[in-house]
């Protein structure tokens, strides 16, 4: 029986990531990060317990939640960066080098090539995210016994962030060179990042205009909004009581609709990438 071309390409993409040491690099970086994070968590918690700040369980809970979210925020960023780096060259690079010619001249359809690459990257990135978020939450639990609420919901939203970025990068790869594509996607990510903070601070300061700027930037690139929603899902009980945290002020939590928007955004972007690649001159 004929193997599915999509699966052949997916396997090729995974193999390439392994052969070109992308996997080893990302894993090493991830492990160093986890080591630093785990040790930091352990020392900080020991210090809190020693100085008696932990006497108030609510305060300790809040501190630990803050530290955990800081760790996950770093994972979110690392994940976004690795998503873009892993996918930025996969279309544009093959077109520039000409390796795509022998591939696309085979009896396979263009969408099978693109979706195959997408699938390979999704498998790899999902495993990476599972390892990193699993590492951060497990280390926190081991070091302090703390476990936040709705971790899976939060992690799913971080994954969705990667999905959006992956689709954007693949679409860019059908149009721009590797370098230009990378610059553009990171710039988009940066716009969303700044927009997100403007929205939060604007909301605290009561500036409706600033909030609008934030919302528009989230519509342009919904990545930061997804993180804020993830942080909201994993917030501590104290944030509920006080209504403010460094990651999400209760007055500017991205809505459920924003999640739906991000799913559609990623899906449409991926469909556009397929559509463009389908008719692209190689």
């Amino acid at each position: 029986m004929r193997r599915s071309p999509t699966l052949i390409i997916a396997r090729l993409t995974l193999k390439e990531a392994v052969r070109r040491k992308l996997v080893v690099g990302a894993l090493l970086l991830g492990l160093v990060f986890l080591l630093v994070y785990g040790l930091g968590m352990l020392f900080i918690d020991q210090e809190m317990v020693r100085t008696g700040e932990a006497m108030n369980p609510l305060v300790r809970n809040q501190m630990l939640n803050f530290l955990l979210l800081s760790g996950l925020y770093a994972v979110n960023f690392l994940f976004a960066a690795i998503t873009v780096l892993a996918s930025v060259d996969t279309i544009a690079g093959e077109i520039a080098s000409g390796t795509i010619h022998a591939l696309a001249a085979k009896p396979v359809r263009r969408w099978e090539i693109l979706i195959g690459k997408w699938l390979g990257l999704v498998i790899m990135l999902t495993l990476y995210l599972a390892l990193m978020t699993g590492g951060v939450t497990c280390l926190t639990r081991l070091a302090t016994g703390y476990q936040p609420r709705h971790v899976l919901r939060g992690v799913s939203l971080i994954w969705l962030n990667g999905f959006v970025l992956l689709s954007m990068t693949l679409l860019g790869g059908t149009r721009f060179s590797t370098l230009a594509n990378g610059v553009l996607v990171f710039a988009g990510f940066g716009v969303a990042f700044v927009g997100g903070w403007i929205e939060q601070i604007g909301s605290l300061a009561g500036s409706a205009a600033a909030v609008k700027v934030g919302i528009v930037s989230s519509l342009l690139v919904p990545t930061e909004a997804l993180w804020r929603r993830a942080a909201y899902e994993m917030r501590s009980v104290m944030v509920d009581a006080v209504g403010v945290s460094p990651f999400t002020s209760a007055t500017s939590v991205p809505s459920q609709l924003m999640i739906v928007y991000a799913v559609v955004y990623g899906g449409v972007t991926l469909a556009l990438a397929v559509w463009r690649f389908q008719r692209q001159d190689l």
Partner: protein
Amino acid sequence: MRVPHPIEVRRLRKTFNGKAAVDNLTLTVERGEVFGFLGPNGAGKTTSVKMLLGLIVPTSGEGTLFGRPLGDPRGRARVGFLPEHFRFHDWLKATEFLQLHGDLYGMSDDLTHRRVPELLDLVGLTTNASQRLRTFSKGMLQRIGLAQALLNEPELVVLDEPTSGLDPVGRRLVRDIIHDLSEQGTTVFLNSHLLSEVEVTCHRVAFIDQGKVVRTRSLLSESGGPLAEAELSVEIRVRPRDGWEAMRGGQWEAAMEGLRKWARQLRVDGERVALTLSSEADVPEITRYLVENEVDVYELSPQRLSLEDLFIRLVGAEEEP
């Protein structure tokens, strides 16, 4: 039912930013034929081949591979293709590379496992089977690329500048493989700017320049020589039978003018005459005519117009051959 031709294209056109790279390309390649697609660099050869293989979408026009419209994978399933420059995933080992392309052709594992060693042997890379392509020289990449193009036992093999930048050994290998394919009845489409290569391997050739087919011609004929039907340049050295002194005024000139009956071009320079004939069959006629007109023939040397002469005449001398 009519058996579809391996390649049939009509009025194929491709423009990049309004500029035509391929303009009004119409051609048919017959089964079992070795077809040369000849033209200077930048003439639109690679663009044409890419349109055949669905790598480039034509701006207008239509075409089929084995009766399937261009872009249909079922047509490509019967085609082997060696792209220009032989760029492949260089982090793969030679066998992995062939296995991958076998999978993409939809070949069974059994067939791939049988074909891979066969082809490595054919292109002389058996000892390099477990080496990564990164370590391969350009000549070796060309050979593994050829193996890749022959994996699925294709009915049509498309080679885009298969010998560009290669040493004579590599060129020889390509020539031998084309010859073997032709013996087996495989159709070959050869893109090249190397005239000598096309001249020795092809049955028929199309000249392309600035995106247009300038001319298509057969290189085969009954008399065997590759260019027997080409225009023929003939140089002759003649003298009046009774010497120049016996010639009446204008008689010699009149006799020479009479050659125009056969000659497309005629140049008379004393006793040396150069003329261009459209067929070899005219040569005996000319000698008979000259003898009848009291002209002795001392020398007659037909010079076949080589593909290169023809090419330069068609495309212009400033282009590289």
